[in-house]
């Protein structure tokens, strides 16, 4: 019994069409004008202060968002690219803040100058911690990172030289109140731009590809010739570097450093959430996520104000986002090939 093969042509045609859509997803042309325009816009934003009304809060929010863009992008190097979800990255936020903050308090050197140094200290610390905790993966790693926060917290709270649990007040700068935020604003802007550029570079390098391989199957990666241990620890150190830099400037901006400003679980969860919501492992994702989460948060504070309903609503938003955008906004849109060009940096 034989069956004729009349429609085999259009089956092949269908496949070919599908393959083409796959190819399109691989399209590598980038909308470079977009980040440049955005950067220019952000550089000019403080000019608003000249209009006479006080836009300090707008500046504060933008600055705050950029701070999280730095941290989330940093986190993304380990959590997104290498697939090691850390709930303990605020440890580096704290260490960065304290290293720079204490030097600032004692020597008077601005944390903006100290930030790269604080970042390096954090990178070194991250390297060492990574050597221990990166021995396990999956949930065990997540939990070990949680424990890390607790350890640092207890240690910081009991170290009296740095103020223990009560913390240290740092001097505020002498600028008039409407310009006082600008140094920090530009510092965060520079860091955010650098962090995004760096994560783009990493993602598209051999190193980034190695990390992606590690996130899927370490044994396979290892046998493909990737030095998994080194890659992972390096990723850990790099991500600690960015988070530490953000922490350094954040402390001076707040004029206060204290363990429980940095070492609250909400901060590390925010980093994770921003990445997940925006798109873990994508370049634009952490930034998109940071903007969204901070916007949501502001929205709730503005509408629901002081209430427990706020927490509830945040939880609901989070759950909905996770259910409907399991790969994050950028990731899910990309999967359905609906990602706007300006966000496609992967």
């Amino acid at each position, binding site marked *: 019994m034989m069956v004729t093969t009349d429609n085999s042509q259009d089956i092949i045609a269908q496949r070919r069409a599908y393959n083409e859509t796959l190819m399109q997803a691989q399209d590598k042309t980038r909308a470079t004008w977009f980040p440049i325009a955005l950067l220019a816009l952000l550089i000019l934003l403080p000019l608003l202060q000249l209009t006479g009304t*006080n*836009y*300090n*809060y*707008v500046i*504060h929010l933008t600055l*705050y968002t950029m701070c999280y863009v730095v941290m989330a992008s940093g986190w993304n190097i380990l959590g997104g690219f290498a697939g090691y979800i850390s709930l303990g990255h605020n440890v580096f936020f704290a260490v960065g803040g304290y290293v720079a903050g204490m030097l600032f*308090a*004692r020597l008077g050197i601005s944390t903006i100058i100290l930030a790269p140094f604080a970042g390096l200290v954090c990178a070194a610390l991250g390297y060492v911690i990574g050597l221990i905790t990166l021995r396990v993966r999956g949930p065990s790693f997540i939990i070990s990172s949680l424990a890390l926060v*607790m350890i640092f917290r*207890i240690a910081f*709270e*009991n170290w*009296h*030289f*740095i*103020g*223990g*649990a*009560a*913390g*240290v*007040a*740092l*001097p*505020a700068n002498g600028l008039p*109140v409407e310009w*006082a935020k600008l140094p920090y604003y530009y510092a965060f802007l520079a860091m955010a731009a650098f962090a995004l550029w760096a994560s783009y570079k990493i993602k598209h390098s051999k190193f980034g590809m190695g990390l992606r391989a590690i996130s899927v199957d370490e044994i396979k990666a290892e046998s493909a010739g990737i030095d998994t241990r080194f890659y992972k620890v390096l990723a850990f150190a790099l991500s600690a570097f960015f988070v530490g830099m953000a922490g350094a400037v954040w402390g001076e901006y*707040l*004029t*206060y450093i*204290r363990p*429980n*400003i940095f070492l*609250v679980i*909400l901060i590390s969860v925010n980093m994770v959430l921003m990445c997940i919501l925006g798109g873990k492992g994508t370049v634009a994702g952490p930034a998109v996520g940071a903007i969204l989460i901070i916007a949501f948060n502001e929205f709730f*504070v503005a509408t629901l*104000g*002081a*209430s*427990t309903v*706020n*927490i509830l609503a945040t939880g609901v938003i989070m759950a909905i986002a996770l259910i409907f955008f399991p790969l994050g906004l950028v990731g899910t849109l990309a999967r359905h090939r609906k990602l706007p060009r300006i966000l496609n940096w992967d």
Partner: protein
Amino acid sequence: EIKIGASLPLTGAFSIAGEKHRRGYELCVDLINERGGLLGEQVELITSDNRSDPATAINQYERFINVDQVDAVFGTFSSRLTFPVASLLAKNNFVHPVPSGGALRIYTQGHENLFYFQPDAAEYFGETLTDMIQELIPEDQRPQTAAVVAADDFFANAVEAGFLGTEVVDPADGSVVEDLSPGYLADAGIEVVYSEKWPEEGFNDWLNLANSIKRSEADLIIALTASAEEAVQLTRALQTVRAEPMMVYYSQGTQTEFYEGTGDASETITMHTSWHPAAPFEGTLAGEEFNNSDFVAAFEEAYGNAPDEDSAIPFAVCQGIEQSIRGAGSTDNAAMGEWLYGRTADDPVRTVLGTFQWDERGLPVDKPFLIAQWNGGELQFVYPTDQFEGVSELQHPKDGF
């Protein structure tokens, strides 16, 4: 319309006190509006929840000032949150009335806009207790030894520093803010036989702590914390291990929640407090006479239960700001600050916490702390005995838990 902003810890570790603070503020603002408002305008209170998180608190005051464009602010709860907020409010030249934030370091930073609405800095709490012991207890019944346990909290540490006589140091530059040695306990000839700190969060091992306290066989147990919840936990643990001190003193625990959680174990525990419902403090509100008893009555009417310290203090803060706006004739914060600084013993700010006038640091002058004691489920006011009527007798010694 006059807008006033207050960021409070409505959720998180300080939520109990935070919620009560909100009620205090709210009641006061409602009452002012009922009485025709302030400078002919209605007062709007904006509260928001800072989740007991300092960074959020800062953010919210920033928001009040820049987005909501408030005319004045009320302070937040606890030293922990007040400390960072202080710099921001100073920078923006807002009068910063502090309901709860007793640590000395807040007032030694050189801010000129601070006004503390409780008797004195936390470091000086201890003196009242030792005074009371010396005044009210016959020599042969006085405690000889003490166990001092404290939460590792800004406020509790400050109180502890006074008791134990440690130096208060500013870690930013290592300078000594104040040297409290030898400490009130040493002054009173009480030997510290045990001292211990528990971490601010995540501590569960109360029985072990209570057991250690018991084994120290101290006559006096001093437990310092900013959270009523911890006071409950410790009390229950002390009851379980059947500790037998002569006297127990807490820095927190005047709330009904404390009694609810501890029941009979609360018997004869003495508390530090800034306020007591029975204290005949005389204040004003909206230009009219408004005494402590009026406050208690108004509070009960509004919320259906009796107020405690955590609502009275913010109420007083609100009274103070209201009077300063009236006094300054506008919501110009600089003028308000000046007016507040200008208070004297004869012309003080009058609140449900009594009268206030401040020194240049922002700490009240000549204001005694109060000590209360739980007796038969009732919080009785026991010390000082000479300030007003209605002081109950101190029950001593304690008869087990």
